Every structure is written in structure tokens, then in C-alpha cells.
């Protein structure tokens, strides 16, 4: 229920929109797109980070590959390598994966997964593992894998999220600075104050105008984010943000999703709202006659 005071103001704001629909529609569309793009980027990369973390936790502490001088991977002799590694103090488990089984006892494997008990042992045990086998090896710890995966997960996604800030600032600048629009706005503020509108009245009007197209824009933007990042559109979005959609991404909890959307929302909306209210506040102390005169013939 709108209070009596805002009933007419709301009606006026709607009338404004009807008489000059172009700019609000454009800005509204820009906000929707911005929110959708940034929100999707952030959410997909958060989901990816969560997924990679879970995968890593369930995976081994270290992975060993045999390499040649050129760094290419070679098959590993299964039996001798596994028994050598299992003898290293600190190795809780060593298993082979892939490769060619053989009845003759010379089966090979592609890689060896090693588990240690304490995470701090992952990096410390590497020299002893390398010494235990008599071939050159490349060893990746869980920590190193995590760093690589997180970087991949966050790159484009957070770029999109971060890029939304300058884009939002650009919109704010557009609303503030566009020459003719600025003059029009100053004249409008000057006229309204001449007719007895207070700064609070003006703030209410500008706020209502912004909400009238801002809220639908935000709702649409959030809907798009949910469709793209969480719902049926997410395969395509994953392709775009992560560069591939190999893994089935985990869903974030409701709380985390809301938080991520709220953060992007704030980044997009705060500069834009500042652009809306700043002219009102700036003109509060100016004499109305000066505002009306601006740019008039």
C-alpha cells in the first residue's frame, strides 16, 4: 500500500516514464544485461571452485607421472614402482591408474596416486618419492592442483564480475554527464524547486523513477542469472565462462547463491543509484533561478 504522499508521486513518476520512455528503457536494458552477465560469471566460477575443491578433496594427495627428457609422459612399470613407493615412510596408500595390464608380470600404469595422512606431508614427501623410483618423475601435489584449478575457475568468471564495476560506473557517468540530459535535469530540478518541491520531495521522485524501471530490470537480471548460472542454461554459460563443460558442476547452497547475486547487484546498482541521486543532492543549496537559467535561450 502506498502512503497518500507517494500515491501521486508514483503516478507522476509513471507519467514521466510514459512521456519519455527511451532513456529509462535503454538504461533498464543495460542494467539487466550487466547484472545477468556479471552474476552468471561470478556464480559459475563459484560453482566451479566448489566442484574442484570437492574433487580435489576426494582425490589423492599426490599424483606421479613418469617423464622422459623431453617431459613427455611414459608408462610406469607397475609392480616395482608401487612397492618402492609403499616403502617410503609417510605413504599411506599408493595405487596405479590406467595403463596396460599384463599376465606376464610386466604390466604398466599411466600414473600413480599417493595418499599421505597429514596435508603438510604432501610437499615434504616429494623428494623421498622421487628418490624411491629409478626413473625421472613429475609429481603434482593436491595444493598445486588446487591452485591451477582455482585459477582456471576464477579467471573469466571474476573478470566478468569485476568488469561489471567499470561498466556500472560508465552507466552512472552516462546518467550524470551526458550533456543535454544534464542540462535538462538541472532545469527540471530548478523548476520543481521553484514550484515548492523540497530536496526530500525531489529525492523521492528520482528514487521512484529509478525503482519503476530499475526493479523490473533487476528482477529480469536476477531471473536470467538463475536461468543461466543455476538452471537449464548453465551448460552454455559454463562453456562461456570456463571454456569447457567437462565437469558436472555442483550447485551452491541457497545462502551462497543469494550472497553472490547480492554482491554483483550492489556493484552494479550502487554507482547507478549514486548517479541518480547525486544531481539532486548537489542542487540542494543552489538558487532555483540559476538552475532554470542553465542552457536556456
Amino acid at each position, binding site marked *: 500500500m502506498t502512503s497518500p*504522499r507517494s500515491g*501521486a508521486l508514483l503516478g507522476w513518476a509513471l*507519467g514521466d516514464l510514459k512521456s519519455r520512455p527511451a532513456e529509462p528503457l535503454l538504461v533498464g536494458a543495460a542494467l539487466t544485461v550487466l547484472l545477468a552477465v556479471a552474476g552468471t560469471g561470478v556464480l559459475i566460477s563459484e560453482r566451479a571452485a566448489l566442484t574442484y575443491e570437492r574433487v580435489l578433496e576426494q582425490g589423492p594427495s599426490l599424483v606421479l607421472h613418469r617423464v622422459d627428457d623431453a617431459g613427455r609422459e611414459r608408462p610406469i612399470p607397475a609392480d616395482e614402482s608401487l612397492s618402492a613407493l609403499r616403502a617410503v615412510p609417510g605413504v599411506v596408500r599408493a595405487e596405479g591408474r590406467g595403463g596396460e595390464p599384463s599376465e606376464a608380470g610386466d604390466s604398466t600404469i599411466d600414473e600413480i596416486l599417493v595418499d599421505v595422512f597429514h596435508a603438510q606431508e604432501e610437499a615434504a614427501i616429494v623428494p623421498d618419492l622421487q628418490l624411491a623410483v629409478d626413473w625421472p618423475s613429475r609429481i603434482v601435489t593436491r595444493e598445486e592442483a588446487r591452485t591451477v584449478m582455482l585459477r582456471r575457475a576464477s579467471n573469466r568468471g571474476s573478470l566478468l564480475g569485476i568488469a561489471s564495476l567499470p561498466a556500472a560506473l560508465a552507466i552512472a557517468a552516462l546518467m550524470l554527464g551526458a550533456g543535454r540530459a544534464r542540462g535538462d535535469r538541472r532545469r527540471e530540478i530548478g523548476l520543481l524547486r521553484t514550484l*515548492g518541491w523540497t*530536496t526530500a520531495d525531489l529525492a523521492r521522485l528520482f528514487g521512484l523513477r529509478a525503482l519503476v524501471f530499475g526493479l523490473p530490470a533487476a528482477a529480469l537480471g536476477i531471473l536470467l542469472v538463475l536461468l543461466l548460472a543455476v538452471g537449464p542454461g548453465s551448460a552454455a554459460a559454463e562453456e562461456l565462462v570456463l571454456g569447457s563443460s567437462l565437469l558436472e558442476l555442483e550447485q551452491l547452497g541457497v545462502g551462497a547463491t543469494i550472497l553472490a547475486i547480492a554482491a554483483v547487484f550492489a556493484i552494479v546498482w550502487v554507482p547507478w543509484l549514486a548517479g541518480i541521486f547525486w544531481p539532486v543532492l548537489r542542487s540542494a543549496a543552489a538558487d532555483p533561478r540559476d538552475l532554470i537559467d542553465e542552457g536556456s535561450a
Partner: protein
Amino acid sequence: MTAHSLVCDAVCLERTDAAGDDHLLLDQVSARFEGGRIALVRGPVGAGKSSLVHVLGGLLRPTAGTISADGEPISRWVAAHRDRWRRRVGIVLQSPHLLPGRSALANVALPLVPRGGSMAELERIGRQRLAELSLEAAAKRPARELSGGERQRVALARALVAEPDFVLTDEPTAHQDDSGAQLVVGTLARAAERGAVVLIATHDRRVAESDPPKDVYQLDRGRLERKQ
């Protein structure tokens, strides 16, 4: 009927133009404008009539002197308080300053919008004001489609829509034919009968020669003199 008054006490207004030169637009203007009467301020173009209206209406602050309304020194108030005071003022400027994309009715209702009430109520009041100035037919037309004379009358309707205690007008009969001018003066006279302070700044002889009794002032190069 409460008696309103608008008093100028040694008011000066100095402005610096684009070239950096100072101009004294109002020079020691002192006067007492009483409610219930029309004050006619005559003077040639450039005499300072517009400046007087701006300063009286709180659109500008005087460089020196004080303006008091009903005993309150409004020209010394901070911007926020003057904003509130301006709600009691109905002002018609030389250009009508209408919102071109909105209808005549919407323009008239504009001062009432932030003060509460529904749009329907505002429209009802607006239509009444328009009818008083023979503009009912133009109510729903966008302001940009109105003639110069119609626009000026819409501006007057807007100034009177909130039944203000102080009505200040700058060339309100501009672009009006004789019957239009008569309508304008008659409407202003009715506002004065309500007890409002009504000021008409104009060089239009038709206003001087019209019926309602007036206090006449002459403004010449920023100096104000009471004539009768």
C-alpha cells in the same frame, strides 16, 4: 481572513555577468506589499522587474537587505527552509517553463504532487483551475502543442493551484489577446480577494488600465518608487 504581508527592506541585488562586470539589478528596494490588494510594478524592459519577482519568490538571495513574509525573514533562511516556504508562493515567470511532454493538466497539478493526495484528486483540482482560465479543452493536450498565450495561462493556473498566500507574476498577460488579459487580471484579483499578496510586474498598459484597484509602483534601473 488572515492578512499576509511581504516586505522588502533595503534590498539590493548585484549580479556578475559572463564578462565579469557587476550590475546592480535592484538598488535599496524597500516596500510593503499587503494581502488583499494587487501590487502593480511598472517599468521599462531591463528595469529589474524580473529580478524583483525572483528575489521576492525566494529564487534568488538578495546581495543586501532582507525580505520578510508575514514577519519571518525568509531571505536569510537556509535553502531547506526556503524550499518549504516556497510552497506558500505561486509564481509566474516570463517564460512559462512547462514540461513539454506532459499534458496541460499534469503541468498544472505539478506543485501538488509531493504534498499528498491521489492523482485523481489532483486532476480534479487541476481541471477547476484550468476551467477558470478557459482552458478545459486543452487539459489533455501536451504542453508543447499549446499556443504561447495558452502556455502562459497554464503557468498561471499552475501558480494558483495550491491557493498560495503569495502570488508573484512577471508579465502574466504576455501573448494574451484582450479577453485573455482580462481573464488573467480577473483571476489574480480573485486571489487577492482571498487575502493573498498579489504582485504583477508588467509593462502591459492593459493591466494598469484594468478595473481592480491596485497599489502602483514604478521600477526604474533597480530603484522602486510608490506611485499611488
